[in-house]
């Protein structure tokens, strides 16, 4: 592959300019950039919906969003953040970083790469425009359980179509990543010498190929139930609404790890760099990632403990879920041991990485608590669960994305970000995040169900605190936008190697910024 690309040398400057550069590009860096900007746009839209939700919940009573619209906001907030913001952002990182970190000139299927990106704006447009069709957007929650989602209007169909498209994009992206990693590593880079970020993405990509077709299947069944007279999920026709939940969560639980394994990878790159010390327990990290991925496929029904299941079923899913704590614990211990007796500095990427570990562990604890069936019976579908998964998805996945952006911005743009503002971004995010979500644990324990637009007065104080936190968190992310834009436009020139502890190929073998075509001759890895 590298040899073929070598022959094409000299075509570098022939790519189109202007808008056509982006429409027709097959360059992994251009595509990675587009993925990242797309996901940030969706993050702002999903964030806007979150602000709407928190504004309505700011005090008891119905003020801003009528219940029907409130349900549309919660549903689309979930769908947009999961499928539009977090997942594409990690694929963007994979596009930029996998070739750079394994010493490959580009992704294996460059044209398919272009196609898998350009599907995304179509799906994103479908999701957002569904607010404006008769009946409004889907309002059955991001998990769209039937029979409720069978009741919805055109918005549900647009959502189903969008999920199909997003699924196709993810599957193509994953095949591309798997092929690139398995076939295009630089000579000498054996699997067990790959950077952790590449390992986590390899495993994630396999998970995606495994479960995205399952999601496509289940939304198709929903579509035929809605329009073509089938009764997969309708008891009156011989179907079973609970079967939907089983199929959905067979996708949905691995999906959780799809959004967190690459985060583990990013953090595993950043901690050693800023501790100036090799990653502790590299091989156990790889095995832990693989075991999490395998276990994630056999725990799905822990989302359904209240749906009714045989005792043995509940016990099996409880034990399997608890077991995930072991490899996850290994990872946290390894990061701690990596920091131990390092020579640490605390630039913004390191701050976000440490913030990630700190808050992710809290989310992990509440995860174990939710795994215990009797306790889950109480907290299922309450704000406790909302708090739990925002601790793993916002302070988990999102913080790692911020960490990664700050870490690699010099490599991508050739400029340094403003360190002072970066630190502000971290501390404000940290403060407002906890203000928003920590109190939601208490709301859930005290008995506030999720997905309700109004609540009893006993929940009023914490909801107000949470809303104030959410507005602060939302505004803080505009600071991030400012930091990134000013870095691109007018940032100080980055030194050739801004992070002295970095050891991966993109830092040791390439200048800052990375040239448009890199590693046309593969580096030799010792």
């Amino acid at each position: 592959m590298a040899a073929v690309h070598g022959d094409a040398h000299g075509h570098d400057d022939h790519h189109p300019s202007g808008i056509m550069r982006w429409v027709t590009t097959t360059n992994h860096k251009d595509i990675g950039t587009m993925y990242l900007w797309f996901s940030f746009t969706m993050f702002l839209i999903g964030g806007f919906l979150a602000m709407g939700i928190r504004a309505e919940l700011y005090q008891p009573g119905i003020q801003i969003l009528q219940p029907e619209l409130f349900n549309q906001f919660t549903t689309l907030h979930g769908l947009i953040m999961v499928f539009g913001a977090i997942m594409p952002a990690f694929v963007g990182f994979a596009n930029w970083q996998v070739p750079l970190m394994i010493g490959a000139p580009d992704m294996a299927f460059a044209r398919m790469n272009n196609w898998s990106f350009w599907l995304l704006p179509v799906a994103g447009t479908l999701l957002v425009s569904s607010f404006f069709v008769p009946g409004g957007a889907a309002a059955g929650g991001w998990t769209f359980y039937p029979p409720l989602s069978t009741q919805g209007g055109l918005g549900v169909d647009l959502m189903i179509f969008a999920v199909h498209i997003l699924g196709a994009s993810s599957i193509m992206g994953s095949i591309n990543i798997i092929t690139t990693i398995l076939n295009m590593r630089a000579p000498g880079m054996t699997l067990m010498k790959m950077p952790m970020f590449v390992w986590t993405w390899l495993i994630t990509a396999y998970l995606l190929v495994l479960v995205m077709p399952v999601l496509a299947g289940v939304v198709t069944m929903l579509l035929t139930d809605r329009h073509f007279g089938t009764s997969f999920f309708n008891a009156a026709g011989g179907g079973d609404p609970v079967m939907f939940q089983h199929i959905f969560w067979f996708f949905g639980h691995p999906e959780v790890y799809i959004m967190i394994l690459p985060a583990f990878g990013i953090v595993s790159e950043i901690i050693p760099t800023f501790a100036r010390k090799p990653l502790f327990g590299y091989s156990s990290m790889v095995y832990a990632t693989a075991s999490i991925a395998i276990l994630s496929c056999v725990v799905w029904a822990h989302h359904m403990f209240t749906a009714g299941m045989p005792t043995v079923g509940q016990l099996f899913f409880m034990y399997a879920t608890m077991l995930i704590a072991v490899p996850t614990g290994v990872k946290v211990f390894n990061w701690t041991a990596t920091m131990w007796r390092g020579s640490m500095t605390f630039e913004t990427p390191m701050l976000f990485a440490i913030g990630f570990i700190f808050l992710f562990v809290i989310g992990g604890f509440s995860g174990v608590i939710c795994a215990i069936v009797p306790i889950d019976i109480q907290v299922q579908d309450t704000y406790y669960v909302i708090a739990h998964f925002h601790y793993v998805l916002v302070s988990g996945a999102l913080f790692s994305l911020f960490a990664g952006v700050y870490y690699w911005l010099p490599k991508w743009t050739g400029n340094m970000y403003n360190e002072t503002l970066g630190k502000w971004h971290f501390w404000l995010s940290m403060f407002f995040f906890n203000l928003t979500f920590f109190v939601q644990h208490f709301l859930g324990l005290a008995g506030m169900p999720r997905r309700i637009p109004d609540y009893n007065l006993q929940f009023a104080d914490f909801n107000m605190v949470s809303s104030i936190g959410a507005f602060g968190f939302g505004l803080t992310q505009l600071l991030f936008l400012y930091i990134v834009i000013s870095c691109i436009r007018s940032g100080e020139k980055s030194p050739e190697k801004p992070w002295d502890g970095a050891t991966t190929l993109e830092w040791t073998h390439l200048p800052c910024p990375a040239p448009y075509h890199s590693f046309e001759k593969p580096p030799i890895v010792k």
Partner: protein
Amino acid sequence: MGSKSVITWAGVSAFTLYSSMAVGQQSKYNFPEPQSVIAQDIYDQHIMLMWICLVIFIGVFGVMFYSILKHRKSLGYKAANFHHSTAVEIVWTVIPCLILIFMAYPATKTVIAMKDTSSPDMTIKATGYQWMWGYDYLQGEGEGISFFSKLSTPRAQYENKEPKGEHYLLEVDNRVVVPVGKKVRVILTANDVIHAWWVPALGVKQDAIPGFIRDSWFTADKAGIYRGQCAELCGKDHGFMPIVVEVMEADDYTQWVAAQQSASAVKTSMHVENK
């Protein structure tokens, strides 16, 4: 001044915070006061898990923050170069497994107890509707009683035209009434979409699924009124279909049953006369 006084300060403030959380019947920071054996088990296991989590948290982050404070480049600390230790890695794989087994043992016993809906003293069928609950007393004292239970909070309150009452959104026109100390089996189903019947103080949450039957049970320890809400998104008014269980002493319950049955007898005879 040093680590000792910091630890003392942290201990005192944690203790103060913890005891302030425990004060008051309706805790804002924890589960409502348990009113059944199962709810008590859940409450106790949750507290136990919180302590375990707290110990692990202090252990892990104690080490990490010590490292963050001491192993800094700015303090001139030189990085070591170790990168694995099989012994340590085995230890921190095995110990979490043991902790998990310790957690799973009581949980398993509770799961088995929760699932045992056999030989109830009475059986009530709860049916979820968009957006209210229907109750049918199927077996035991009160057999034959049947009614709907709807939100009784006036619309003006949630449209902010009237001040909100104490039980805002947690009050209904007809409460489910059960006797104290009797094993009540609740059979659940739904008419349209999935709902969930949840009363936190009694430790019961079970989805009500259209076209299927699920069951759960509780035995209330004390007379009183216990409030809960639908816990599965069921459409527009999901937030407006509460569940209120009134637990009565045996005598009061007998009187309530008699009143209900004579009322329904009147209704039936009126119905016949009108024909």
